[in-house]
């Protein structure tokens, strides 16, 4: 009992064409849903880049007391470098600190002029791999045994460390919320898209429930009825996904450069790996949604 393999392919294409009102409805829904999801994943990648670039500015500065023993400073530096969370440690001399101060005070050079001795301490500047670790690393530094030996004000450890104490907490609270909102929003959009797509597939199949009943009565088995519907669902999803991808591509190529020009100081960019990943996810998830959605919607009408 050989089955015409071509039957199903032909059938799903013909049905797509003949039920074009329904097909178009499903394609539009899938297209816009995936577009929405794709756009928000893209934007969240961009926002994440920006947030990271801001967070990267977070570093820890350890003020050293004048005349701290070089071995002690080296020991602290070595201890810090041994820490996984630390990216690099730089030494800033008293003179460099003064230069920096002069640069920030250029509006009021009188202040600098009045300085007779250099009041600014030397420092170790610690950059972190993950800025979120800043509080932990600060605690580690305070616990380090050589730290009191070299600190500018050993009796007040807090005053020998600068890491934007208030700002850091606020910044991370904000970026954490921002990320949570982003993930929640994308999850919501994805869920809504799923519902939309399922909805439109269900309506399309509901509109053809009589046909399905007739097929059953003529002796078609469930999978024989289902296969063309599933393939049609996959076809619709594929078209929707490709359209969504195309639109996103056009936006990336034509709109992103304009935005980047307007905001040269922000790292507006999506890597091409991210782009390919997004594309693949869109197409594959579109097809799965199409197939699964059709399968679920069909179940009800395949019982008689």
């Amino acid at each position: 009992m050989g089955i015409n393999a071509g039957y199903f392919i032909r059938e799903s294409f013909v049905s797509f064409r003949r039920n074009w009102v329904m097909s178009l409805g499903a394609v539009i829904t899938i297209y816009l849903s995936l577009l929405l999801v794709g756009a928000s994943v893209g934007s969240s990648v961009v926002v994440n880049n920006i947030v990271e670039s801001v967070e990267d500015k977070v570093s820890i500065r350890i003020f050293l007391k004048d005349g701290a023993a070089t071995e002690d400073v080296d020991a602290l530096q070595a201890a810090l470098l041994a820490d996984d969370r630390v990216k690099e440690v730089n030494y800033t001399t008293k003179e460099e600190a003064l230069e920096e101060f002069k640069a920030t005070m250029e509006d009021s050079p009188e202040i600098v002029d009045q300085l007779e001795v250099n009041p600014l301490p030397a420092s170790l500047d610690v950059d972190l791999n993950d800025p979120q670790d800043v509080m932990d690393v600060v605690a580690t530094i305070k616990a380090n045994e050589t730290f009191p030996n070299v600190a500018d004000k050993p009796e007040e450890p807090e005053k020998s460390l600068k890491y934007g104490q208030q700002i850091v907490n606020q910044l991370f609270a904000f970026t954490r919320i921002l990320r949570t909102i982003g993930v929640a929003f994308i999850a919501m959009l994805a869920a809504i898209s799923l519902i939309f797509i399922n909805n439109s597939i269900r309506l399309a199949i509901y509109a053809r429930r009589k046909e399905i009943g007739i097929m059953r009565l003529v002796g078609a088995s469930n999978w024989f009825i289902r296969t063309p519907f599933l393939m049609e669902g996959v076809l619709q999803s594929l078209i929707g996904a490709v359209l969504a991808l195309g639109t996103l591509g056009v936006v990336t190529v034509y709109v992103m450069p304009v935005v980047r020009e307007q905001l040269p100081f922000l790292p507006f960019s999506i890597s091409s790996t991210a782009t390919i990943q997004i594309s693949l996810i869109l197409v594959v998830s579109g097809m799965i949604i199409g197939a699964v959605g059709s399968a679920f919607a069909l179940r009800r009408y395949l019982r008689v």
Partner: protein
Amino acid sequence: MISMRNVGKRYVPDKPPALVDVNVEIEQGEFVFLVGHSGSGKSTFIKLMLREILPTTGSINVAGQDLIKMRNWKVPYLRRNIGCVFQDFKLLPNKTTYENVAFALEVIGRSKHVIRTQVPEVLRLVGLEDKIESYPDELSGGEQQRVSIARAFVNRPPLLLADEPTGNLDPATSLGIMSLLSRINKTGTTVLIATHDREMVDSMRKRVIALEGGRIIRDQSRGVYGYGD
């Protein structure tokens, strides 16, 4: 071929039932008319045979299979052995005449070649050779009925059910269809026809089962339409 025992069917709990205590045996190769007033239960009888509905009471055996115990997934295989002409035709609206008839063959996995030769042949037999590319809503009532007839016997099923197969046909075409069904019967196919066509029943002199209010009131071999009106 068909055996019904104490079959009853009640669609709505507190309404009179559509069939009551029906006992029927139909042998392979028989040709049977099912007659009765409108609403007497003829279509219900046929739907039970196709397992489109299940009886409320009793047991039904078709082609050696117990329809009540039959698993859902086996139902399509039962139906492939039964050709059925439906009272409301049940054509697929998005398929042409040709495709509607071909569907019955595709369902059982016939090869393209078989389909290409058998479908036009059968359509010629029912006089639709020039309506091959028409969709159901481009056909007259009688033409749709003939498509339904063509689909019912294109795969040469051992059992052919026909619900009012000539209701939309003129006497000449009806006669043609009837002699076609009769020829199909001669090849060994069991044929069961629900009909109101007194002329036809009376002229064929085959077995007649008469229903009234869901009960069998008469079961004669070589019978007539009856009802003294």
